[in-house]
């Protein structure tokens, strides 16, 4: 067990979780106090001792499933605890399911069900919500559709896709809802609740299928190899430009608490910074009570200036999500700045400050930008040169020496003129000009990227691929 545990800890570390050796020891002590066959308790014990942040929990879960649940002696406890809503099921379908379960768990793939039978069972299972059936169905669905080829070094996403495509869970949802609508008149509220219920059950089924596929891959290739191929970056380390839809959603969830934390932290350091200059008058006055000896020097309250921020963001396809994240973060911190103005461009440029001012929260505003901003001038391909020149013409005078200009974009200019002179102009006027580039540093200057041409006019060009890097930059900015 201890050996298994250290393998597991190594895997967590490889996935980016900070696990100290104290925590490793704690985990080793903790597993002594739980029954080994109780998987849930084991998960709790390891989770509580090894994972110290909610954002890291999904990574832990994945690794845990691979390392522990796939082993025969640690299979989940049988029927007893699950299947509670069974009472509601009509006897006929129940018997059918039980029969199917028996056939499947006994004989396995040698006696496969027909596709239609499986679909009918699936429909029934979701309608009734019996939980114990889920694992059985998942097993047979995987048998039938995944077509797992032993020895192929894949992470299972492909098998999952194959299985799900055949099952067509979305279509299933529609059919169930239609069915419900047909039976009786539903109010919108009832319909919504029913749909959410079905969706939850389908999500559970999907999870069961995923677990089943993992389980098989583990027995095929071993835990370590599989863990390596399904390892995913933690939300704060995900590359924003290449994030999948799910990853983006996860990023979004991390962004909100992150911005709140940053705001609190910045506010605090501002208040506690004690670097005001000596207040001579107050010191002298105070010294009167000690007979003219200035025992206690008095200082002026520090009044840190709050920078004015101009954000100029490229929102063309490839870098759009990066621009959105940055805008959202900057606005979430807007109390730390005296003024934030934002401009978005593709080949034309438009000011969107008013969108943020009208909206109640930055996330909603960011969603509306694409619809409301007038950013296409000619063909809708990035043209930094034209956008910058346009910025200079329309708003150039408003950039003062208190302003900090942030340009967000990959500087892939489709071989247009760079318009770099605008930046040098801005650098002269503004306090700072920073360029945030969401591309990895080694790609800078390759192809149509002309970031080097702009870099000479910026105080710094910062690589900003992940939330972690973004957070670091914003902290230094404020």
């Amino acid at each position, binding site marked *: 067990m201890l050996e298994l545990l250290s393998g597991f800890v190594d895997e967590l570390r490889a996935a980016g979780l900070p696990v*100290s050796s104290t925590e490793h020891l704690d985990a080793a002590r903790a597993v002594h106090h739980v029954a080994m066959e109780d998987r849930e308790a084991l998960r709790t014990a390891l989770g509580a001792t090894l994972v110290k942040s909610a954002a890291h929990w999904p990574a832990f879960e994945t690794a845990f499933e691979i390392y522990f649940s796939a082993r025969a002696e640690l299979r989940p406890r049988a029927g007893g605890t699950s299947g509670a809503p069974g009472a509601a099921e009509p006897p006929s379908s129940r018997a059918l399911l039980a029969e199917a379960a028996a056939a499947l768990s006994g004989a396995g793939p040698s006696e496969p069900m027909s596709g239609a039978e499986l679909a009918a069972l699936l429909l029934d299972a979701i309608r009734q919500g019996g939980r114990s059936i889920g694992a059985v169905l998942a097993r047979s669905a995987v048998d039938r559709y995944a077509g797992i080829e032993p020895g192929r070094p894949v992470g299972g996403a492909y098998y999952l896709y194959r299985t799900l495509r055949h099952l067509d869970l979305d279509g299933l949802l529609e059919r169930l809802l239609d069915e419900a609508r047909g039976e009786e008149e539903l109010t919108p509220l009832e319909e919504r609740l029913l749909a959410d219920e079905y969706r939850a059950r389908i999500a559970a089924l999907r999870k069961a299928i995923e677990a089943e596929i993992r389980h098989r891959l583990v027995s095929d290739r071993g835990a370590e190899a599989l863990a390596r191929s399904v390892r995913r970056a933690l939300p704060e380390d995900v590359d924003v430009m290449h994030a999948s839809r799910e990853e983006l959603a996860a990023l979004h969830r991390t962004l909100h608490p992150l911005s709140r934390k940053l705001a609190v932290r910045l506010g605090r350091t501002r208040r506690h910074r004690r670097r005001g200059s000596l207040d001579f008058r107050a010191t002298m006055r105070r010294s009167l009570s000690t007979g003219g000896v200035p025992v206690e020097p008095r200082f002026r309250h520090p009044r840190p200036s709050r920078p004015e921020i101009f954000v100029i963001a490229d929102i063309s396809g490839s870098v759009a999500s990066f621009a959105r994240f940055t805008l959202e973060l900057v606005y979430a911190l807007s109390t730390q700045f005296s003024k934030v103005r934002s401009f978005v461009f593709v080949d034309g440029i438009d000011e969107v400050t008013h969108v943020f001012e009208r909206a109640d929260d930055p996330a909603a505003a960011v969603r509306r930008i694409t619809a409301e901003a007038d950013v296409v001038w000619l063909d809708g391909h990035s043209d930094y040169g034209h956008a910058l020149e346009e910025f200079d013409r329309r708003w150039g005078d408003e950039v003062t020496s208190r302003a900090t200009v942030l340009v967000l974009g990959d500087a892939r200019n489709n071989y247009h003129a760079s318009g770099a002179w605008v930046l040098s102009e801005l650098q002269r006027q503004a306090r700072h000009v920073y360029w945030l580039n969401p591309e990895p540093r080694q790609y800078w200057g390759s192809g149509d990227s002309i970031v080097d041409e702009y870099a000479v006019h910026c105080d710094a060009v910062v690589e900003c691929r992940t939330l972690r890097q973004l957070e670091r930059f914003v902290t230094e900015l404020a």
Partner: protein
Amino acid sequence: MSTREGLGGSTFSSIEEVREGLARVGYVADERIAGVVHLAGRLEKPVLVEGPAGTGKTQLAKSVAEAAGWRLIRLQCYEGLDEAKALYEWNYRKQLLRIQAERSASSWQELEEDIFAEEFLLTRPLLEAIRSDEPVVLLVDEIDRVELETEALLLEVLSEYQVSIPELGTVRATRVPMVFLTSNNTRELSEALKRRCLYLHVDYPDLEREREIVLRRVPGIDDELADQIARIVRSLRSLELRKPPSIAETLDWARTLVILGIQSVDAVSTTGTLHVLLKYRQDIERAAKELLAADA
């Protein structure tokens, strides 16, 4: 460690027992919560409870104390909390009086020994928890509100269960208290603190647990209404609201419905009482539009 009396064995011997004990006092614990509480007793480690506001983090500590029949000592954290408020303080007024009363009689050495006696010590929650003879539950509430530096105050207490007072020596716990720290996650806690704790993330409950909670905490509610409430709240939480409804708000809503004598929730009664559940205007509008297909 061996000289101290542990707390695990005597009170909660299994996860099931933790669960039942908590259920007796009206706290519905899921597998994870019960598991971590059990483990905390066994390993004699503090539990760091994190999660959104209103998911029963503080209540957990209170319920554990109630279930075990132990005294609850609470330290509410706030910005500017210091040693004198958290650990101990010398009662200097009393010390001064003592010095004045015996000005001529004794030598300085005797006096010094005298005025730094326990008699002049004002115990604050942390020291009180350590010195208590009876078993206690120590709740350090909203630890994320103190500054990073102040966290260090807790470290000695949390890992060694002792407090060092320069004038008196080290006070060690005779009984290891059960410690809960709660955090709303407004800032990252220090690694040193996290390392010393078991971590428990308490999220919004799933459907079954929420229904169970409503049934237990709201007198006079029937199964059907509780089920409906739990389902509506689950749908609301999936909507990406500014502030999703917490358990506390769910309970408020359930009570409201019971008081109003509503047997079954429909669009009209929901719209009328949505403000109990949601606290932002745009959230209410959004919920009304999405869920009820109506304008609030």
